[in-house]
């Protein structure tokens, strides 16, 4: 898919995220809008997934599970299930819950507890190496999630086993549920920390489609090292009143806000 087509997809996905969350009256709006360009480029440019059950498919595990509505929208667009199925999200007996589950075609693991995805990805990547498969493994981590110690266990492991078929992406929007990372639990200097754990790190604008395409095309950044993309993002990106406002972590628009959001994303 070319750059212009990818940009059009991002626009479409943003609107669909708002629609899904507005209808369900629940969802992690801010985080969905901050990772959607990453998911767009991953699914429409990077990941090789012929079918959700192809053993040779690339693996993507969204460790930041709470931004599931963004993943739902993208997987529906891949044709793994009808978009209209999302109308049941959060309703009694719906398979579409507030975090990823393997019941949904295209979802690899049940995530939602933070600090789990990277270890599972590392296991995937090691298995692929053992099988001499060239499949790649990706995860998106939230910035608040980086306080989980298990992530750093997995970082040590991936570097030790030289998992250069593994790429972790940090959705660095600088806000978590109760406020700025810097106030809750500071991450900085995050690039140096990750590099010192033996990863090859690149910082990008997480909403710049061209830069994302170029960065993913350059994987692995160094042979023999796992790759880490620090994606600088904006929580609530694309909707003016949501951008950089922590309360939109799981805020749901009212009717007027809903109309305004759709108008801004038109």
């Amino acid at each position: 898919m070319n750059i212009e087509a990818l940009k059009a997809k991002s626009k479409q996905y943003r609107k669909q995220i708002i629609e899904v969350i507005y209808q369900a009256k629940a969802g992690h709006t801010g985080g969905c809008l901050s990772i959607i360009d990453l998911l767009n480029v991953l699914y429409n440019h990077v990941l090789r997934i012929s079918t959700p059950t192809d053993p040779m498919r690339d693996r993507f595990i969204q460790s930041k599970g709470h931004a599931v509505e963004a993943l739902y929208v993208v997987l529906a667009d891949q044709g793994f299930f009808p978009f209209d199925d999302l109308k049941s999200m959060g309703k009694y007996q719906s398979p579409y819950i507030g975090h990823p589950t393997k019941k949904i075609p295209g979802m690899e693991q049940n995530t939602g507890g933070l600090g789990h995805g990277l270890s599972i990805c590392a296991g995937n990547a090691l298995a692929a190496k053992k099988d001499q498969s060239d499949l790649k493994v990706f995860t998106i981590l939230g910035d608040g999630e980086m306080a989980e110690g298990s992530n750093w266990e997995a970082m040590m492991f991936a570097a030790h086993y030289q998992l250069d078929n593994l790429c972790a992406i940090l959705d660095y929007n600088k806000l978590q549920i109760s406020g700025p990372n810097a106030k809750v639990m500071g991450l900085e200097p995050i690039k140096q920390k990750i590099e010192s754990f033996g990863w090859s790190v690149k910082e990008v604008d997480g909403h710049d489609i061209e830069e994302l395409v170029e960065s993913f095309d350059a994987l692995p950044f160094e042979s023999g090292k796992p790759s880490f993309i620090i994606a600088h993002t904006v929580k609530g990106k694309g909707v003016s009143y949501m951008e950089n406002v922590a309360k939109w972590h799981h805020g749901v628009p009212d009717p007027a806000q809903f109309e305004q959001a759709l108008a801004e994303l038109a």
Partner: protein
Amino acid sequence: MKANLEVFSETLQALAAQDRQVIAVTSDSRGSGKLVPFGEKFPDQIVEIGIAEQNLVGVAAGLAAMGKKAFAVSPACFLTARSLEQIKNDVAYSDNPVRLIGISAGVSYGALGSTHHSLHDFAALRAIHNLPIVVPADAFETEQAIRYASATDKPIYIRFGKKNMPDLGQSLSPNFEIGKGRIIRAGADLSLIATGETVWPCVQAVELLAEQGISAQVISMHTIKPLDTDLLASLGAAGKPIITVEEHSVHGGLGEAVGSYLFQQGFFVPFQIMGFPDEYTVTGSQTEIFDHYGLSGAGIQGVALNLLNR
């Protein structure tokens, strides 16, 4: 006489020789897991994680999701506490068929103290859906359990100790089936239902009770979950006293599972749970600790006599 830990190691080597998908995943635990020979023979089939139990279980889940038969091997105390959320989410909930192997379980570490004891694991794991809990008592049961774990495509937790255990024999129950208790000694007056390393002291108690003209049966309830409710129903219907014995807290383990089933089915038999009371565990070797809490032939005999005289 052989330690279940040794049997585990030998069985895993035999399985690995036949199947390259078998992988041992260790948390600096290959020595305590008796897996040094495994690592030497199958260097491509062992993954060292270092002392990082959360990552141990997460990576094992990732390996299992890719078709590897991942055996995550770590002391039961750390495996089932430090990595409990990984067990719950990445193994059980995500249905990744990790073989969780809790070594040196219960109070096997003796005087090393409570940090190294696992007297909570049945209780913690029983409440998690999609995770059988298996506690083999001797070499036969251990080998069978490990072979089952390799063959299944579902998650499983197996825990055992490191002490030499007598062969309990297979004359009364020649087979090993997950979810089915095995009769180790037959008897008509009462039943001793035990699991893992507490089955043997029950056999010793049977001999002491026989001297007093009391005929007790011993059941190795090697699967704590799913529980053999058919067997329990037959025991309940017989109406004789039942004693459960386990190397675990009296809260949330085998005894409460058995009692809960019997009570809810309307079987009101004389009943006693033997295990570890809710207190700081006494210092000592595994044997000394067992003796202290009455998990010995004489201790179980005493409880049996009390129950029969009620």
